[in-house]
């Protein structure tokens, strides 16, 4: 077991100006499941490959435990890349399939057997150890492959989009299996995905990257409740947060034809490049439908209603001359998403009035996009 530390680790690809990973500072605790997430090109896979030893580190260091591995070959780093290869050997028993790498390394027979049996117990494969892979179900075969990595007792597991090749159903199943297995094993794990749902459901902590820069690292709850900037706010959560930039007049942000009072202490923190505007974020599930005329309520014209049984979502536009164009959400520009009571859905074309629940609005600088604490 081990901690993992990225210490201002930087990767610049030859012939490029901008670093693919820019001075990444990240400390991963022993036994932690950390998910690196972000859109394509954000540097998440590059970061993982730097840790694996597949990418050069041009500046900074990488440590596994207290050991500086920056210039150590991948095979000497005591890490395991999981799921890179899980084709099983048809003529070998399950036990041999799991233990052959140890045999290559010259591990004594008795020890191989002990380690294989331990791994089999964790993976629920004990009664299959002497069978051939042919006799196993698809899920069991996948666990044998996992067992291959486990018996090596690596200090860190690395997983790069291991579910990308599975269909939707199997993806959800395997997601849960990996997460629970990792918790039982307690091996430090770094996991890369572009899928924020995967990140939220699996990680102890999540690190969001964009353009090679770490945006925020924290628990799924941190990321959801207090996103550090507009990017994280829009990236984490499904459907995505509604985010708009609105002009402030006399302490009130003009949101379509409505107004939202901006707290006094926030007004004092506005910077010159905010241009007397503020960016407000509100999640679809942070809105209440209220009667017309309720203070701080925002009129939304209903474009379409999506009913999912347990939930219903209104896709609408802000009513009013200004502001409408400056808002965006998971549904695109100039659209907002509102979660409504699935038993009381409005009709298409109707105008509903919604209000952001107290404490559930997110305020950001219009200029820098940074969160405004208040």
């Amino acid at each position, binding site marked *: 077991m081990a901690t993992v530390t990225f210490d201002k680790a930087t990767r610049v690809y030859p012939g490029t100006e901008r670093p693919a990973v820019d001075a990444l500072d990240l400390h991963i605790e022993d036994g932690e499941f950390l998910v690196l997430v972000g859109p394509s090109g954000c540097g998440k896979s590059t970061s993982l490959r730097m840790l694996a*030893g597949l990418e*050069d580190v041009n500046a900074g260091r990488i440590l596994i435990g207290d050991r500086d591995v920056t210039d150590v070959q991948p095979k000497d780093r005591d890490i395991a890349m999981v799921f890179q*290869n899980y*084709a099983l050997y048809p003529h070998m028993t399950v036990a041999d399939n799991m233990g052959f790498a140890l045999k*290559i390394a010259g591990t004594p027979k008795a020890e191989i057997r002990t380690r294989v049996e331990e791994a089999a117990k964790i993976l629920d494969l004990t009664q299959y150890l002497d069978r051939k892979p042919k006799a196993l179900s698809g899920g069991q075969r996948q666990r044998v492959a996992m067992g291959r990595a486990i018996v090596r007792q690596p200090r860190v597991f690395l997983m790069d989009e291991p579910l990308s090749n599975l269909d939707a159903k199997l993806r959800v199943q395997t997601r849960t299996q990996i997460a629970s297995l990792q918790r039982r094993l307690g091996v430090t794990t770094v996991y890369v995905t572009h899928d924020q749902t995967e990140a939220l459901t699996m990680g102890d902590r999540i690190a969001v990257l964009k353009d090679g820069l770490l945006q925020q690292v924290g628990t799924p709850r941190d990321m959801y409740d207090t996103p550090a900037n507009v990017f994280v706010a829009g990236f984490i959560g499904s459907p995505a947060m509604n985010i708009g930039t609105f002009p402030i007049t006399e302490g009130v942000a003009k949101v379509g034809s409505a107004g939202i009072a901006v707290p006094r202490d926030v007004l004092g923190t506005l910077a010159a490049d905010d241009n007397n505007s503020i960016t407000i974020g509100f999640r679809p599930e942070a809105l209440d439908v209220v009667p017309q005329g309720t203070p701080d309520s925002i009129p939304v014209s209903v474009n379409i209603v999506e009913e999912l049984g347990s939930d219903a979502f209104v896709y609408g536009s802000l009513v009013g001359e200004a502001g409408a164009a400056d808002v965006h959400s998971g549904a695109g520009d100039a659209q907002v998403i509102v979660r409504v009571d699935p038993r009381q859905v409005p009709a298409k074309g109707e105008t509903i009035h919604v209000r952001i629940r107290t404490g559930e609005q997110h305020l950001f600088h219009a200029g820098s996009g940074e969160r405004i604490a208040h």
Partner: protein
Amino acid sequence: MTPRTRLQITAAAPDPALLDLPWDVPLADWPAERLAALPRGISRHTVRFARLSGRVVAIKEIGETVAYREYELLRQLSRLDVPSVEPVGVITGRTAPDGEPLEAVLITQHLRFSLPYRALFSQALRPDTATRLIDALAVLLVRLHLVGFYWGDVSLSNTLFRRDAETFAAYLVDAETGDLHDELTPGQRGYDLEVARVNIIGELMDLQAGEFLDEDVDAVAIGDALAERYEELWSALTSSESFGLNERWRVQARIERLNDLGFDVGELDITTDIDGTTVRIQPKVVDAGHHSRRLMRLTGLDVQENQARRLLNDLDQFVAAMDRQNDDETFVAHDWLTEVFEPAVRAVPRDLRPKLEPAQLYHELLDHRWFLSEAQKRDVPMREAVKSYTKDILPTRPDEESVLGVSAADLREDADVVPNRD
């Protein structure tokens, strides 16, 4: 309900016959009459071979994004002239008649006259087969690394082999885990090599467990040999060397050594130190196929490196025997082609031709003639050698154009039968 998606075919040169294949059936359930019975390697995906417009294609069920990615990578690799399978296309939007969506497929061209390692080991081959396969794989890995391709999952299963004179030439068949970079880091090369070593040992141990390979064969030593062969070749091709200014002949010697290994030097970095007493050289661009390119230029024959080496030797002998050292090389080569090579290959009866590709056939004819001459203590003419070879040797050889011999029942997903072609 999800809307019924439409079948979408992405291919550089779409073949209408693709539409006739039963895309609404999971690959594992395809009827036997659609399939070509070819031995398959170990794969985590369902893979089948099917006949299509007189050729054979390999079809692999795989996630959509991965399918497109691998298709693109294989196209880039062919453009870079790396030995790899040719991609035919990607098919997405497959649905079963009951509306159940089916996985996307990647289609590649089956490499004619290629042999998976499991088929090679299932016959009685010379004991050093494993070593020759490993040599071929080392050359392939070096060539891939030279163009900046990181494989990620090097194994015998992900490679196909073609006979190349007395050796083998290896081809990449699975690029799923690969990536193309401008240049690989030492870590990427080292990891590929380590994965290769472990996978090869595992695959050989598997053959031993299935009693296809003698258990006395040292699988670990063979895996280690790959790493050694690779390092030797890599260093010969890329390392820099320094010498005194008076040893300039070493520049030419280095180039000849690389030619001998089958590589051309496209660009050589030559630097002298400040006082001009030592020279440092380092090959910057090396291209495989030194001999095959030369043969292609002279005769238009497109063959593999060691076959080309053999044919060029034969051409040299022809030049000497005809005493035409002073003639234009291309004219003599043309005469050799029409007077020696083509008549010999054409003399083989048509029904025996699918057994070996022409260049390989010619290589074996040369071998056979040598054996006959040796035994009879005279120079046996080619015509006689062909007659004896097609009568006594070739009929006993298996057809290798597309290795057949598995019964349809063995094509089930869980079948692990290595075809027995005796």
